[in-house]
């Protein structure tokens, strides 16, 4: 009986250990996303519908526009608006986007919270690049500051700075100090400075994404690579339109994308570059907007953004309890706020509601 009992006990111990390990890893993987993802889905139900956008387009004044948003979650952000100017409305919408990021960082599990903090850093890069470019061209830098990011007080201080040396003091101790020093020394021009900031930002994002495991690595990795593709494709196309050579374009590209852009660098013009992209996974995206892209590259920018959003929605359906859900939501929210800003701007410009509705489709 002794050996039989021994085998039985060992078998039970092995089975229990395996079951406990698998159960534990299952719980660790999915449980942390239970609360945030369910909440985010409830938030998705509150995203504005097409009908609602059409109603907003009928607002005719910014005051009516704000009143029409009273029964939405934007109400909280319009509470501080003292006057119904475009600037105030835009700032309120920027606060709403910042609020969404803050909420994500609050409710998401620790392991993906850091990614959203890094993602928020893209707004720092945009703000710093805009402020520096404005300072270099003697434009009012405050107008270019978007009220969102992880280092907004520093960005505001940069905008108020009286000289470039003062900006260097503000940037001291941040990762952006070194490229700014190079800009001051003339080793970089404004465009290369901006590229360097984006390169730093995306290398941080990619490094973080690739440090994750399993589903998270797949989702975050794809998200970052798609974003890099978007930036690189637009950079190459803009450069081709400006007639730049392959040698001039190459340093502007951010490493880590999924598309081999080398053949694009050697074509002669924008049309040929678009034709070259036809064989890539962005071919279908470009084909739909091809005619309009040659006149306006922002059409392609929106088309690729829409593709990234759709891809994240697909991943969200495939991995319902994962970081794909908040990523998909934040992209939808950004698109919604972009459309609201466009409506506000068009209303402020006195554009007729019918025309606003037409233009809204293009912004989407």
């Amino acid at each position: 009986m002794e050996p039989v009992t021994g085998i039985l006990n060992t078998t039970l111990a092995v089975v229990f250990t395996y079951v406990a390990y698998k159960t534990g890893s299952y719980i660790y993987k999915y449980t942390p996303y239970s609360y945030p993802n369910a909440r985010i889905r409830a938030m998705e139900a509150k995203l504005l519908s097409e009908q609602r956008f059409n109603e907003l387009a009928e607002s005719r004044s910014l005051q009516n526009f704000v009143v029409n948003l009273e029964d939405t979650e934007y109400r909280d952000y319009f509470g501080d608006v003292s006057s119904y100017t475009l600037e105030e409305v835009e700032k309120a919408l920027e606060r709403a986007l910042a609020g969404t990021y803050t909420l994500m960082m609050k409710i998401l599990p620790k392991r993906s919270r850091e990614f959203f903090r890094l993602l928020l850093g893209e707004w720092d890069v945009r703000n710093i690049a805009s402020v520096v470019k404005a300072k270099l061209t003697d434009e009012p830098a405050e107008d270019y500051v978007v009220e969102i990011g992880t280092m907004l007080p520093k960005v505001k201080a940069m905008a108020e700075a009286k000289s470039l040396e003062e900006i260097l003091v503000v940037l001291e101790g941040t990762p952006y100090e070194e490229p700014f020093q190079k800009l001051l020394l003339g080793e970089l021009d404004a465009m290369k400075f901006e590229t360097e900031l984006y390169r730093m930002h995306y290398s941080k994002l990619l490094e973080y994404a690739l440090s994750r495991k399993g589903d998270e690595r797949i989702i975050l990795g794809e998200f970052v690579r798609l974003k890099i593709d978007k930036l690189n494709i637009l950079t190459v196309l803009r450069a081709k339109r400006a007639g730049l050579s392959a040698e001039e374009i190459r340093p502007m590209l951010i490493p880590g994308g999924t598309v081999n852009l080398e053949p694009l660098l050697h074509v002669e013009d924008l049309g040929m570059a678009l034709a070259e992209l036809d064989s890539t996974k962005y071919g279908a995206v470009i084909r739909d907007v091809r005619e309009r892209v040659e006149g306006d590259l922002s059409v392609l920018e929106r088309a690729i953004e829409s593709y990234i959003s759709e891809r994240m929605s697909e991943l969200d359906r495939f991995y319902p309890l994962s970081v794909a859900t908040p990523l998909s939501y934040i992209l939808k929210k950004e698109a919604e706020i972009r459309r609201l800003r466009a409506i506000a701007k068009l209303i402020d410009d006195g554009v007729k509601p019918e025309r606003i509705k037409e233009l809204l489709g293009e912004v989407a």
Partner: protein
Amino acid sequence: MDPIVYVALGAALASGIAGAASAFGVGVAGAAAAGVVAEDEKNFKNALILEGLPMTQSIYGLITLFLILLSAGIIGGGFKFAEPTTQNIVKSAILFGAGLTVGLTGLSAIPQGIIASAGIGAVAKNPKTFTQGIIFAAMAETMAIFGLVGALIMIATGVGL
């Protein structure tokens, strides 16, 4: 091992594992329920129904516990297998196996909670998916039912009630 150890372990594993799994399952679904209710109180009813689904495994565990204790005579009389004879050891080992079956299949409460959690999110986004959400979550219940049926057969044919 003495027969009493087999019987006690069988009863404890049936209700213990299934109960703990149910607790995890309800916990996962409950967190999702709290999330959707935080956004809109109208989600409460649908979320509550889906949240309750992983509780059934703990009921199966409890039923099995009672059946094991009943058939071993611990409930309603003296312990029938006190003597460590081969027949008593086999019978108590069968009761142990029955308990283990229900306990392990009761682990289905954890994935059921995860499915219910995803379902709660889907229903919050589109209330028309409520029925489908229940069906998807109920699928995980099948394994627990199979386990309970298997345990009942083991107890009834191997030991007798």
